[in-house]
């Protein structure tokens, strides 16, 4: 199944089940979880169902396009169902059939794997889903986000699209994936990986990035004080990515690391609280 078809099929599958199809967020982020459609929507009592693809940047994972399994930017297909339906696992397994996986001839397992994001003050309980030993999905019942206990609980399902498709296309090198008919992943993304790796590991201007981090943080605080919750959250996203950039660049000292993570978390938690407070009173409790 070519890459874009995998995206179509999964999106269509969930769309047919009444799930809103959203789009990638237009800021850099490390995972689909950081998209406001997840981080903010899991807060408060409102039911919400959404699916979207999120290009996810992890600067430190860059390998100059030389590693067949590792990328600084990969794609996640992220699904949020809030509250989580009781047949969520069965629905998920059905979605794998939509990808062409026949569970009768594979070994599909849910193995314990809990998720935690110190920067977002978030954690959840769940599994990694293994397909013949390969991790293809992270399945999480969110317990806390922005330091706030959640209720109702949202289920988050994150498909690792490249991994899953490498399995489906039976290729050992991500760059050999067929993205569109006759067009390989290499043609689409290789240059991005090479230059991205060079940027994050060698070229990023440390002083500038550090300054931008500080400015984004202060801007976030200021915006929050003005009651602009969503713009403030965008500054959280910027902080997080700028921090990852500094980290990949090897420019974060020990004491700085802890402090920076703490700063971003504080802002993320403040945003989460402001978001919940901004919901109409009757919406605040289930």
């Amino acid at each position, binding site marked *: 199944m070519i890459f874009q078809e995998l995206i179509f099929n999964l999106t269509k599958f969930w769309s047919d089940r009444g799930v809103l199809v959203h789009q990638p967020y237009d800021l850099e982020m490390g995972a689909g979880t950081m998209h406001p459609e997840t981080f903010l929507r899991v807060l408060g009592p409102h039911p919400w169902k959404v699916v979207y693809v999120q290009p996810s940047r992890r600067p430190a994972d860059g390998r100059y396009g030389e590693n067949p399994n590792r990328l600084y930017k990969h794609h996640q297909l992220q699904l949020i169902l809030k509250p989580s339906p009781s047949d969520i696992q069965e629905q998920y397994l059905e979605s794998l059939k939509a990808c062409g996986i026949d569970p009768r001839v594979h070994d599909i397992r849910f*193995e314990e794997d809990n998720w935690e994001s110190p920067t977002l003050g978030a954690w959840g309980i769940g599994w990694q889903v293994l397909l*013949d030993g390969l991790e293809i999905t992270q399945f999480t019942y969110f317990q806390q986000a922005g330091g706030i206990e959640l209720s109702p609980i949202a289920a988050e399902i994150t498909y690792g699209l490249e991994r899953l498709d490498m399995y489906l296309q039976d290729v050992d090198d991500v760059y050999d994936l067929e993205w569109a008919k006759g067009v390989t992943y290499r043609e689409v993304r290789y240059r991005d990986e090479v230059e991205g790796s060079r940027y994050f590991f060698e070229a990023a201007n440390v002083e500038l990035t550090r300054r931008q981090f500080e400015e984004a943080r202060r801007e976030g605080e200021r915006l929050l004080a003005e009651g602009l919750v969503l713009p403030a959250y965008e500054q959280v996203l910027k902080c997080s990515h700028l921090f990852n950039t500094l980290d990949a660049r090897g420019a974060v000292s020990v004491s700085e690391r802890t402090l920076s993570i703490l700063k971003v978390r504080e802002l993320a938690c403040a945003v989460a609280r402001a978001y919940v407070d901004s919901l109409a009173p009757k919406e605040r409790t289930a």
Partner: protein
Amino acid sequence: MKRLPFLWEIGCEEIPASWLPPLVKELKQRFEKELEALALEPKSVESYGTLRRLVLYVSGLAEKQQDRVEQVSGPPLKIARDESGAWTKAALGFASKNGIEPGELEVISTAKGEYLGFERKIKGGKTLHLLPGSMASTLRSLSFPKFMNWDATLADGKGAFPFGRPIRWMVALFGEKVVPFEIQVVGSPAVRSGRKTRGHRFLGPKGEKPGQPFAVDSFQQLTRGLRKRYVVLDPEERRERLAIEIAKLEKKARSRSAPGLSRDLVADLVEWPGAVLGAYPEEFSSLPEEVRATVLIHHQHYFPLEGKPGFIAVTNMAKDSKGHIQRGTERVVVARLRDAKFFWSEDLKTPLGDRGKALEGVLFQEELGSYKLKGERVETLAAWIAARCGARETPVRRAAQLAKCDLTTGMVGEFPELQGIMGGLYAREQSEPEPVWKAVYSHYQPMGLGEDDGFPANREGAVVSLADKVDSLAAMFAAGVIPTGSRDPFALRRAALGAVRVLAESSDRLSFEIDIPPAELLREALRIVREQQPGLAGEGKAEPALVEFFTERLRFLFSRKYSYDELNAVFAMTGLDRPVSDLAKRLEALSLFRSSDDFQALSLAFKRVGNILAGQKPGEVDPGFFFEDDEKKLFEELETLRPRAEELISQGRYREALQELSTLRGTVDRFFDEVLVMAEDRKLRENRLALLKRLQSLFSRVADLSQLVSGES
């Protein structure tokens, strides 16, 4: 009384395998407690489980509770009856409050006097109605390492119902009847008890959709129905099946599965154990075995094959008809091995020693800063230890410098459980001398109490291991990070136990005596921490807390071999101020002495001595003031023995010392038979007390024998 079987299945989303065995056991225990509280005596209670279900089965449970009589007591009789003998207002009020006729009132005699009361007949409740309450309390009482909120509530009035994983179905049958039970879940239909269970997610008999619920009427039907649908309910049976599957493939591969992965754990990862044989290209055989095993065991739960580039992967499927599973597992393994090989060759490009600087960027602990700082402390302490016990300083220093450098390698970043081991392997590849690389390799060991938990490979390793662990303890305590109850985030208990083991066992295992009293070692470690980082928050209180913590671990280690009173006897006289080996020798001597004939007699004597001397402060013996022959004899024999006994004690030959001293037995016995210690004459009495004190203090140089509990050994 009619008895009926009770069957209860709690259908869950996948429970972590490591939780399952304790959970299955706990389910039985908790439910038995509930039945006990209801005075419902069950015939055999059994529990079973797979990752998707917990099952409890009681083969016979009374249909209802026995009727019983309960005595209800009211006001004291003297205010319940007036002078004429008629019931007072208080008595009548008591009767009407309890809804009985005054005629039913009785007098109850108790130890505290007479009271008004009556007997209430209580009809036994129906088990069917009592079970839901027991089920609810059982569910709430199960302990999970981690609970989750899944928007559930129980109808027991206690509200929210966190659990280990969401419950999706429930079978609850008492005889033929469904025991009503309900779990409300936000946004979903309630989970209601019934007769329907579920088999394997993807496998089932022909003509039936896999995973479809199916009804059962009994435990026998449940196990049979599940087996037909590819679920082995009994964990024991699952383990046996797994063993058969593995043996088949071992035979096929003409190899054996290497140790290091718990079969029990793997059997709980699946409901229907199957297995496939996988292989990886020969080129990866050049990777160290430790790395290959980590990839296979820790990351994939696959069994490596001994001496072959292959593995056995346990599956939850009956077969692999299309070979997809085998190909899939091989692909994952190859990708991981390729990663590992990349790290191996990349990491080797930098000499391990050059990584020391990069340790500045690896955090040890917030207050204490980086591993670079820790490394410097460990080196200083290791050199101090080496000098104290005759280890060679140069390789010890080198090993200490290299010990933490692998924390900055790609391999350890990817496989943190290989820390130490990778450092050792890289050091070996980069031609560090054997004493050095082996020391680096094994300096995290021992990791626990078991034989599998390893031990440093050589003297240098023992020194660095000890220095590393003691430094962690000293530094953390100085920073105010002290383990409490179950909170021990830096695994300091394990570190202390490891340090204690190195101190206690290096002599036997490595012919290497580390005869430093732990108290001194801890003090030196604290001094080094203080010198490097003055003014840490917990600095002032660190030493006593550390000594207490360390003593506890030491006693714990010894308690595996010696009884608590033997420990008390030795630790009453000495402790961390003596080398651990010295404490061990005392304990050994004491424990041997205790099984000797002389011991019983002497121990009795020492109890008496202890009692007599309690609260007394005897002075010096005056040899000219003995009156009886037997006291004189005791003094003389004691003084004749003394030089030899003291010599033996100072040489640490406690066993011989006790042997020597126990020749006094007859004389001591006669002394107590013939001599009245508490004589009327004060001078006489004090002289005898002084003699006993002298006797006691000589024995006490080995241990306080009065601490030994007689009749125990």
